């Protein structure tokens, strides 16, 4: 009756409205999966205790004939997006018992449609990481190969969709944190245009880079969710909206060849070429382009992001919310609370940011990084005068093994293809188009497409040309 291999938001909507199955029937399938797999996979830190009540309300709405697009659909939310009166811990000990005092704007938009909020999804602590290994509440395993990471920081969100523990989830992307786990787990992940989705109620990590976005099984679903959550918000001064753009009959795809020269797994490169061929066969023109400054994106990112982090994390001082560790005096309250309740990766990035912003270094690091950021943005804008979309692999490798990337710098290098879109604000999608084999297991690898600002429609349009691996 309910085929998880082919289910989409639209097909579930039809079946629920036609009474082919009930909300209870639908949610139970997902709850069974959670029961079977979540203890091992740890995609959810918490499965909410009021699911039965939510199901009742959703079913009533459907019975009255008032259902909306996601009424009764089971969804997961990344642990850094606030849902009123529910715990949001950002997978940190700092916020172990913190109950949100308001709904994030994206949650408000979703709530009025009465989906089923199944639970909060595991993540790297405060969204800092590329593997979900830095969560203070245990790792999340990749459902495709449980010896491997699901990616990060939205690892729980991606794993939940990949293992059918929800039909879609919301994640956040600051340097690749939606796209990379989507690539590692074999699902669709969209980082919308910066500002197109309100950040009100998203715990700020790096405010000029953070974006909330959907993780889904299909491109159609990504579009549905994006359309639901997007929009200008008075409560987010960086939010904006633009009119929808027209689709094109054919797209011109640019490949920054020079950027693919080193540090990329040969199987991933081969898979990428296959995707380019698919696009050619569909009538797209695929050309090599050169964006010389792109290779400096990672260095720029690892100055700007920690700098903003060091500022944003200063609110976690044990005073107004979260946990407090008592010291001898006020200073020690701060330093012990933060020393004990933050994990090492969070502390590392705060220290890096503090260094970059400190007097004597501010000019050489922070100021310089912003200037280069603007130059990269200009280069990208220039490239888009000539081409429609930029294609890159999402990640230089498939999912790595748990514990494999212990060196922080090595972990950071895996963001190399994703950070640029955050620096420039461009929308980008990861499509689960290929697989590479490792030790007899087929690991997903994603194709990344980057579009001009507010051109998500083009990403969806191209996405539909691919046979998404299920």
């Amino acid at each position, binding site marked *: 009756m309910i085929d998880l291999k082919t289910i989409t938001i639209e097909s579930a909507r039809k079946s629920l409205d036609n009474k082919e199955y009930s909300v209870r029937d639908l949610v139970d399938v997902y709850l069974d999966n959670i029961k079977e797999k979540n203890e091992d996979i740890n995609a959810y830190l918490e499965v909410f205790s009021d699911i039965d009540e939510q199901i009742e309300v959703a079913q009533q709405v459907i019975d009255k004939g008032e259902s909306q697009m996601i009424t009764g659909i089971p969804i997961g939310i990344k642990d850094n997006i606030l849902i009123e009166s529910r715990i949001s811990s950002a997978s940190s000990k700092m916020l172990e018992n*913190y*109950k949100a*005092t308001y709904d994030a704007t994206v949650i408000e938009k979703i709530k009025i449609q009465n989906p089923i909020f199944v639970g909060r999804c595991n993540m790297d602590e405060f969204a800092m990481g590329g593997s979900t290994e830095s969560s203070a509440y245990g790792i999340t395993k990749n459902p495709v190969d449980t010896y491997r990471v699901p990616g990060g920081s939205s690892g729980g969100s991606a794993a939940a969709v990949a293992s059918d523990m929800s039909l879609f989830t919301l994640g956040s992307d600051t340097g690749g944190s939606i796209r990379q786990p989507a690539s590692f787990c074999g699902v669709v992940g969209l980082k919308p245009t910066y500002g197109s989705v309100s950040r009100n109620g998203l715990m700020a990590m790096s405010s000029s880079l953070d974006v909330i976005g959907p993780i889904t099984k299909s491109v159609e679903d990504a579009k549905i969710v994006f359309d639901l959550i997007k929009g200008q918000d*008075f409560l987010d*001064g*960086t939010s904006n909206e633009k009119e929808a753009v027209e689709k094109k009959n054919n797209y011109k795809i640019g490949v920054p060849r020079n950027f693919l020269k080193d540090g990329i797994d040969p199987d991933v490169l081969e898979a990428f070429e296959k995707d380019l061929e698919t696009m050619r066969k569909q009538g797209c023109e695929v050309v090599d382009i050169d964006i010389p*400054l792109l290779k*400096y994106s*990672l*260095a*720029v990112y*690892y*100055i700007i992001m920690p700098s903003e982090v*060091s500022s944003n994390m*200063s609110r976690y*001082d*044990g*005073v*107004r*919310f*979260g*946990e*407090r560790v008592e010291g001898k*005096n*006020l*200073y*020690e*309250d*701060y*330093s*012990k609370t*933060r*020393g*004990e309740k*933050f994990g*090492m990766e969070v*502390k*590392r990035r*705060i*220290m*890096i940011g*503090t*260094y970059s912003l*400190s007097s004597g270094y501010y000019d050489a*690091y*922070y*100021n*310089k*990084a*912003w*200037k*280069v950021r*603007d*130059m990269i*943005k*200009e280069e990208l804008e220039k490239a888009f005068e000539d081409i429609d979309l930029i294609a890159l692999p999402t990640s230089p490798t498939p999912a790595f093994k748990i514990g494999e990337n212990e*060196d*922080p*710098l090595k972990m*950071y290098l895996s963001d190399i293809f994703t950070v640029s879109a955050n620096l420039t604000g461009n929308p980008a999608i990861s499509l689960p188009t290929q697989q590479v084999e490792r030790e007899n297991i087929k690991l997903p690898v994603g194709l990344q497409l980057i579009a001009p600002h507010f051109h998500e429609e083009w990403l969806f349009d191209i996405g539909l040309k691919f046979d998404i691996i299920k």
Partner: protein
Amino acid sequence: MISQEEMKKLATLSRIEFTEEELDSMKGDMESIFGYIDQLNEVEVNTDRSSASATERTNVLREDEITSEAGKYTDRMVDSAPKTMDGYIEVKKILNN
């Protein structure tokens, strides 16, 4: 090279308590990361380009007026605090008398 002194100063600025070993390990990590970041020295930047310029960035402002009901959220907010007293958030002594 980041000195031990500098590491201690950064820890103080960050308001984070580290053990000697943690600080030492952090120093190594940071030197390695800034080693990578140093490649930005290769990029020549126009010196009269200000850091907040280039593209159209405008400030989004609103009127400086109170639009919410006084006290509406107070209980909820104070309840979030680790230590409270009589509806106030309790902290250690700030001023030295």
